């Protein structure tokens, strides 16, 4: 066996982790059980931190270690923990928020991957980075997060979808530009944290007002007919 070159190892590992990230997004798309959903989200955050560490290690970008740490703490631990706590506290931990027509959903998800590939094709041609192809995967993750939000009814799932979008954004920043400048990175992390807390507040407000977390029941505000 020939020795593994660092460059090839890097590309392959990052590619593999990227595939796993998009796979976790699909798992969330198919998964109805809230706790499993949150766990897959935590796994995704963990993978994201891992991919950041790999990029930081191989390419020697010091500041990415900080980003990786923040991702791990924020998206791998804190937000999943918060969501789990809220779900258990609201007695929803055995609750299932099923996707209607899961097969269709999967096919739509797969076509979103194709679509993002198509969109990023001209971008990818420009770049000489080894990870340039993964931009399509990260964009697909963003779209899959949106699909997750559209296809479900429960506020908790919407929040997970929102956070998957955030993951996709961070992911795309890591693979396309090796992270954003530190100020921006900190700002985004702060925004995400505040958003997570506000979502928690909203769970209680929504439940207080409609006695459930089914967002489909939030339908009082419509264009009224004359």
């Amino acid at each position, binding site marked *: *066996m*020939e020795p*593994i*070159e660092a460059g*090839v*190892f890097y*590309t*392959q*590992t990052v*590619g*593999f982790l*990227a*595939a*796993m990230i*998009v*796979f976790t997004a*699909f798992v969330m798309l*198919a998964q109805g059980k809230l706790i499993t959903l949150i766990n897959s989200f935590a796994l995704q955050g963990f993978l994201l931190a891992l991919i950041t560490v790999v990029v930081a290690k191989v390419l020697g970008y010091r500041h990415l270690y900080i980003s990786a740490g923040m991702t791990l703490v924020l998206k791998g631990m804190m937000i999943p923990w918060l969501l789990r706590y809220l779900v258990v506290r609201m007695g929803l931990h055995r609750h299932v928020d099923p996707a209607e027509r*899961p*097969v269709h959903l*999967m*096919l739509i998800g*797969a076509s979103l*991957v*194709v679509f993002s*590939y198509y969109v990023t094709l001209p971008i*990818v041609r420009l770049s000489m980075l*080894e990870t340039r*192809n*993964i931009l*399509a*995967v990260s964009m*697909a993750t963003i779209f899959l997060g949106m699909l997750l939000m559209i296809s479900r009814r429960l506020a908790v799932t919407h929040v997970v979808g929102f956070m998957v979008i955030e993951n996709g954004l961070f992911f795309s920043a890591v693979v396309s530009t090796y992270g954003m400048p530190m100020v921006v990175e900190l700002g985004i992390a702060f925004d995400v944290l505040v958003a997570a807390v506000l979502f928690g507040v909203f769970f209680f407000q929504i439940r207080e007002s409609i006695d459930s977390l089914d967002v489909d029941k939030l339908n009082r505000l419509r264009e009224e007919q004359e």
Partner: protein
Amino acid sequence: MTWLLNILEPLLFIAAAPLFAGWIKWLKCLAQNRKPPMPWQPYRDLAKLFRKETLVAEQASWIFYTAPYIIFSVAVLAATVVPFVSVDMPTAEIADVIVLVGFFALARFFQALAGMDIGTAFGGMGSSREMTIASFAEPAFLMAVFTLAVSASTTNLSAAIEYHLAHPHLIHPSYVFAALALMLVAIAESGRIPVDNPATHLELTMIHEAMILEYSGRYLALIEWAAQIRLMIYGVLLANVFCPWGIAQDTGLSELAVGVVAIAVKLAILNMVLVASETVLAKMRLFRVAQYLGFAYFLGTLGMLIHIVVEVGT
């Protein structure tokens, strides 16, 4: 030399197939705290069936008589396509993986016809279920295999394995998906839990067993044996295509010995995975099988997409 080997290898394959099946049963019993039959029990069963008198229903047509032979010989042919101990098999180079799928389809076709031939309710039901599952499983199988084929630029199994061995450092993310998809398909196609339960003859749930309910004696022996070969083909396919390390690349004696040990170890690992999943999972409702195989198909598609998106051009 290679041709000699090429004859010997499928023979070994066919001979080992009952042992593989028995081994699974043995391990499963152990895992579930039951007293296991010896791993070579299937050989005794087969021998007993061959000795026994063969009874055939009055209404049986020629299909019923010939089907077991066709099924068995197709299984043997299929075994020649899959590289077992060494890569360098002339027959494996002639036929590619699509032929393999064709073989499976042919065997299934005759099995289903034979199941309906007598006209009992169970036979027809089993055939219909088998075809339903097959219509979902085949695309998933092909999709998984295509993922493989695209990255190795060949549909030939030997060539694909050789390509892999030549590029040992490639961790293909797409392979993870393809392997998972293939595993799901293999479970469905070889009639294991959670799709079918090989250990039961409960009327309403059985699929494969329902089709062969009318067979006895040597016919039954041939069909059972063919089923064991098929199970082993899936096992070897998973083992050799996704982790080809250790397979013999030329015909040296030591290489072959390593090859035999390697495949045995790989099958043992697969065996454990299978036993674990069968012990943990319960059989699912028939109507959920479509979803299950849909998931397999989806995994195959995802593997293909990931391959195109991530791997091409890097």
